[in-house]
């Protein structure tokens, strides 16, 4: 189908965009890469009175190495993260995750800010933001604020963003030196949304796990860190018992849906298998310890 009629504004700056949002009194919508919004417009699932195009705002697509971490502008494309030398060096898990997002032509157009704001419960980038303790930079008409990823995602397609706010950037803290990582996803076909996906990072002191992060997506309304499993992994080596316990605690923590693609039981089964795989992969990649 074709989109319904709407007014169109090409924003020239962040201030311009949020002012237009505020003027639209809840009837306006931002469009960045359009890879989530255009299908919704074509299906007429969305019908904004005014579309505010942020795609032409200059200087919002950078990938910068800062003291806090890698700061990625909201307009950076998925394809840019996938091929960025800075991402490959500091956050290889992020580059790996990007390869699982849709297809080339969609990664060429879809933006980081769009994916985070859209908050699809099976999307890879929100999973990475939650895993890596990313911080979102948000600007509204009155003020700017920073929100940790875990507080940003509230539910399926639901975030902490106010109607008149936009995401301008996200900062991913660097992985600590020697930290190992794993990312695993199962989808029906390459490029489809995940039925389930898991990601982990592990740091070791000798053979003892000193830091563990574990996050999952596709199996609940939002990407989740599984802190109970993380705590169970800490201190001591990564044993088969610990891996099983972590997988079980993930399975007990999530609330997957049944749909045409997969049953809730199958998704719960998958996430247990994927949890074990990402933990093994993270230990194998970590230097200074591991299995």
């Amino acid at each position, binding site marked *: 189908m074709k989109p319904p009629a709407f007014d169109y504004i090409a924003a020239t700056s962040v201030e311009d965009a949020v002012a237009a949002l505020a003027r639209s009194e809840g009837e306006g919508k931002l469009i960045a890469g359009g890879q989530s919004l255009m299908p919704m417009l074509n299906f007429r699932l969305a019908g904004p009175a005014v*579309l505010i195009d942020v795609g032409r705002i200059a200087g919002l697509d950078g990938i910068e190495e800062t003291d806090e971490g890698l700061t990625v502008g909201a307009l950076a494309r998925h394809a840019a993260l996938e091929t960025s030398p800075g991402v490959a060096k500091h956050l290889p898990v992020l580059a790996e995750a990007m390869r699982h997002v849709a297809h080339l*032509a969609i990664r060429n157009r879809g933006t980081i800010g769009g994916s985070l704001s859209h908050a699809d419960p099976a999307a890879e980038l929100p999973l990475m933001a939650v895993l890596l303790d990313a911080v979102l930079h948000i600007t509204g008409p009155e003020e700017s604020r920073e929100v940790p990823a875990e507080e940003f995602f509230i539910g399926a397609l639901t975030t902490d963003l106010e109607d008149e706010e936009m995401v301008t950037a996200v900062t991913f803290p660097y992985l600590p030196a020697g930290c190992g990582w794993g990312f695993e996803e199962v989808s029906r076909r390459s*490029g489809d949304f995940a039925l389930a996906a898991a990601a982990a990072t592990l740091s070791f002191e000798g053979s003892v796990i000193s830091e563990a992060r574990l996050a999952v997506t596709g199996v609940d309304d939002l990407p989740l860190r599984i802190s109970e499993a993380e705590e169970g992994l800490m201190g001591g080596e990564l044993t088969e018992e610990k891996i099983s316990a972590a997988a079980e605690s993930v399975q007990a923590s999530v609330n997957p849906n049944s749909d045409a693609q997969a049953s809730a039981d199958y998704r719960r089964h998958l996430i247990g298998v994927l949890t074990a795989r990402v933990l093994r992969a993270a230990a194998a990649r970590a230097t200074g310890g591991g299995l």
Partner: protein
Amino acid sequence: MSGKHRLQLRVNGVAHDREVEPRLLLSDFLRDELDLTGTHVGCEHGVCGACTVLLNGDSVRSCLCLAIQAEGSEVTTVEGLGSVDQLNSLQEKFREHHALQCGFCTPGMLMTATDLLSKNKQMSDEELREGLSGNLCRCTGYEHIVSAVRAAFADKGGDGS
């Protein structure tokens, strides 16, 4: 403002200056306003890849892009590759390898492969299949399409495997 907006862009090297409704899709602009019907429209929600064109050198779905978003851009469609009398080298490979039957998916396949060829020196079979995986073909079973693109890579210098 739901009225028309001025749109200036280049398509296959030719400059155009038009007035368009904001909701006009790039795919419909190309087909209906410029008569470039080589860009096919299958699903209109980003799944089939038939409508793939190059936007400033990157492959994109023209059904998921408003024409107005292409303001100031350079668009390349299948008509920009070769002509019926003079196929370009990739199109020639598609012909040699029987990489099309009904031809509906072919423009999208060609534009995706053009993007892959421009950005990669060489690609493994796995990478090639992954690169083409966003384009659906209901006829060929894909094998001949992969062979054609592999051959195009081989011609570039790498052995393509």
